């Protein structure tokens, strides 16, 4: 019953069927990956607009945005509007961008190909999770019609119980998007278990697959807890169940425990796939085997495991017991060990290599710089007493942007540049890409580094008004955000140009050894002309 695709010359997954419906109803993991990618980039743009609004408002201590435009009228950013801006920025970026970013977009496209499979284990489930994601997004954003939401993306009770009715919509949206995330994770786990090509043993599995595997486990185990938490929050508002509402005898801090039991592991859902991308890019462009394959693979699981027992470090000043603080601080320290192992291993991979500075490699090196800062400042926040002063200040904002944007987003952008020839069958201009990279790297540091300082000085997060002493650092940060904007717009422009009129890409432009590159660009419908057989390790680079 073997039915390999008939490789008609000139056809591939992008042109084997035409028309919008052929995309909307597709079961092909590659097309679903591409749809995810475009949708996620769209929401990244929306979330980014909110971020730019926040930064612009913070240009001066009091109200900054108050001007009159012809036709549109007076535009004012008062405190309630500002609070909605940071809520939507956070909720969109976390639930609709960073969590699905690498797994659902790049992972969907690349994972089955890396395994030498024709598709994911459950293609229909895959399409369904895409539509659940869209539905979640629509439900969440419909709150804009209900006075918007100003609770912050963390929905802390009891404020979220009393806030506008739109809150219910955002919470339900996150709930639905959560199911999308669970189904993607489930699909990936079974795919990795069941659909590896002949000869692709576990010890030959590419590190990106290992990272996605670890991520999927967290998605499957942690997201249901978020689901029930959000459901309880909705019930709290609709039925007044009084579990989280102190006015009805509930426990407000219990919500934080429930929320972070998911949302802390979710932080690793966001970063682990990025670490996987970097583990692929560095050996390819160093022409050397990855250093410490086993250590990197296992450390992903180490991180995933620890992820579940450190949630309490978000609650050091919440009033939880000192004993709990002691234990959570101690456990949190151990996150740094596997993370350090990865970072050191990547640097060691460069040693005695033959390094090419193609664009994906630049992003990988940029990632190393930013992620190192993000990781080291994480140690500050894990340290009990240090966290007491720094928590809920801009130091925390800077820290997680270094990890989530400097880490995940740089890895994602690097990954897009790495797999772009495979996905589109086109090459982009490396010269344009270099300048965009420089803009993004500088823009990022200028935007977020001052926030460490202003945070240590005491500026709290979620502040529309701030003390005049903090003005200069905030202005530097705001100017940095414009560099970031320019950089990302530039990326969009030259990649679009490449899709329209770029040179055709060869099957394996980077001379990489993982399976996805052993197929034509763009790949045929069922990925490979012939099902590949694996005979060696994916990092067998020798000069």
């Amino acid at each position: 019953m073997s039915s390999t695709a008939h490789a008609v010359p000139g056809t591939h997954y992008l042109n084997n069927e035409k028309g919008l419906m052929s995309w909307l109803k597709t079961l092909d993991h590659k097309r679903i990956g591409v749809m995810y990618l475009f949708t996620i980039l769209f929401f990244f743009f929306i979330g980014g607009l909110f971020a730019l609004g926040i930064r612009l408002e913070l240009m001066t201590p009091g109200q900054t945005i108050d001007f009159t435009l012809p036709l549109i009228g007076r535009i004012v950013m008062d405190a309630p509007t500002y609070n909605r801006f940071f809520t939507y920025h956070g909720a969109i970026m976390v639930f609709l961008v960073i969590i699905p970013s690498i797994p659902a977009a790049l992972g969907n496209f690349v994972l089955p190909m890396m395994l030498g499979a024709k598709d994911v284990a459950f293609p229909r489930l895959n399409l369904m999770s895409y539509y659940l994601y869209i539905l979640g997004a629509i439900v969440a954003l419909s709150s804009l019609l209900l006075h918007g939401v100003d609770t912050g993306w963390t929905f802390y009770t009891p404020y979220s119980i009393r806030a506008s009715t739109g809150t219910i919509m955002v919470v339900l949206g996150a709930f639905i998007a959560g199911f999308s995330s669970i189904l993607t994770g489930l699909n990936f786990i079974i795919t990795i278990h069941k659909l590896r090509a002949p000869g692709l043993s576990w010890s030959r599995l590419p590190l990106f697959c290992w990272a996605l595997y670890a991520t999927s486990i967290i998605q499957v185990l942690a997201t249901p807890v978020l689901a029930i938490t959000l459901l309880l929050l909705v019930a709290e508002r609709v039925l007044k169940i009084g579990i989280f509402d102190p006015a009805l005898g509930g426990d407000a801090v219990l919500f934080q425990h429930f929320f972070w039991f998911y949302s802390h592991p979710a932080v690793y859902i966001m970063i682990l796939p990025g670490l996987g991308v970097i583990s692929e890019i560095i050996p390819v462009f160093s022409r050397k085997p990855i250093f410490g394959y086993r250590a990197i693979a296992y450390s992903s699981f180490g991180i995933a495991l620890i992820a579940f027992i450190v949630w309490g470090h978000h609650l050091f000043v919440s009033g939880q017991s000192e004993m709990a603080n002691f234990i959570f601080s101690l456990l949190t320290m151990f996150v740094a060990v596997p993370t350090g192992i990865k970072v050191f291993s990547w640097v060691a991979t460069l040693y005695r290599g033959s390094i090419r500075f193609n664009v994906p490699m630049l992003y990988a090196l940029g990632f190393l710089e930013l992620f190192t800062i993000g990781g080291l400042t994480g140690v500050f926040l894990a340290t009990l007493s240090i966290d007491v002063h720094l928590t809920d200040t801009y130091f925390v904002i800077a820290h997680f942007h270094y990890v989530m944007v400097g880490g995940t987003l740089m890895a994602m952008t690097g990954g897009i540049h790495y797999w772009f020839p495979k996905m589109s069958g086109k090459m982009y201009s490396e010269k344009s890409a270099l300048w965009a990279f420089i803009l993004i790297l500088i823009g990022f540091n200028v935007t977020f580094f001052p926030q460490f300082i202003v945070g240590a000085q005491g500026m709290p997060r979620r502040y529309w008004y701030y003390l005049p002493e903090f003005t200069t650092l905030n202005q530097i940060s705001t100017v940095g955000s414009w560099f970031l904007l320019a950089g990302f717009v530039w990326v969009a422009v030259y990649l679009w140009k490449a899709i329209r009129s770029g040179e055709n890409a060869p099957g394996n432009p980077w001379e990489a050894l993982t399976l996805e590159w052993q197929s034509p660009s763009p790949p045929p419908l069922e990925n490979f002309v012939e099902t590949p057989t694996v005979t060696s390790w994916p990092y067998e680079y020798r000069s």
Partner: protein
Amino acid sequence: MSHSHSSSDSSEQLAPGMVDHHHAHHFANASEEFEASKQGMWLFMVTEVLMVGGLFVAYAIFRSLYPEMFKEAHHLLDWKLGMVNTIVLITSSLTMVLAVAAAQRGEHKKTVRYLIVTLLCGLAFLFVKKIEYTAKIEHGLLPGGLFNFEHAAEYAKSHGTTLTHEKAPLFFSLYFMMTGIHALHVIIGMGLITWLTIRASRKEFGSNYYTPMELVGFYWHFVDLVWIYLFPLLYLVG
């Protein structure tokens, strides 16, 4: 993209009890596909356990805080009705097992019959639940902020007990959340069983293909199992 061959493609002879089914193109063979689906379902069950687990954790926290309240409030639940429902669900699990076994042997009629009995058990369960809910709602035994102490006290008196603990509404919050989410699962399960009944009556299952039967069976047993925990935790406190 052809997900399975159209039946005209196939000219193989089917052994007795087998049905005409083809596995998806990306699996090497049908048993691989079956294994993958089974593993996927197990994983999904794990997510269900964690989701319900959240509620059990909330239950454990509040019960350890107010044990005497749980004792007092649970008297207002009718353990006899709970017991009836327990028996109903266990019976339905049994008929579900029989339905799957019949499907495996390619006994289409038996499969349909057992599925219908399972479905009826589900209906009976929901009917009893409705009786219970109506009684609770009538007497003000509602979740948290909607709880009516006056009505509840009267109701307790008529049952020969008292209800005075100020945290009593919490018990009913948990009761409605836990049994409500469970009932939602029962309804979803019944929808799935209806779907199976239609497919089984079209003779789509046989010894070589019964994956949906097996998977929905897992799910139904899970729903049953959750009730077996809920029953003592809510109806038989202390």
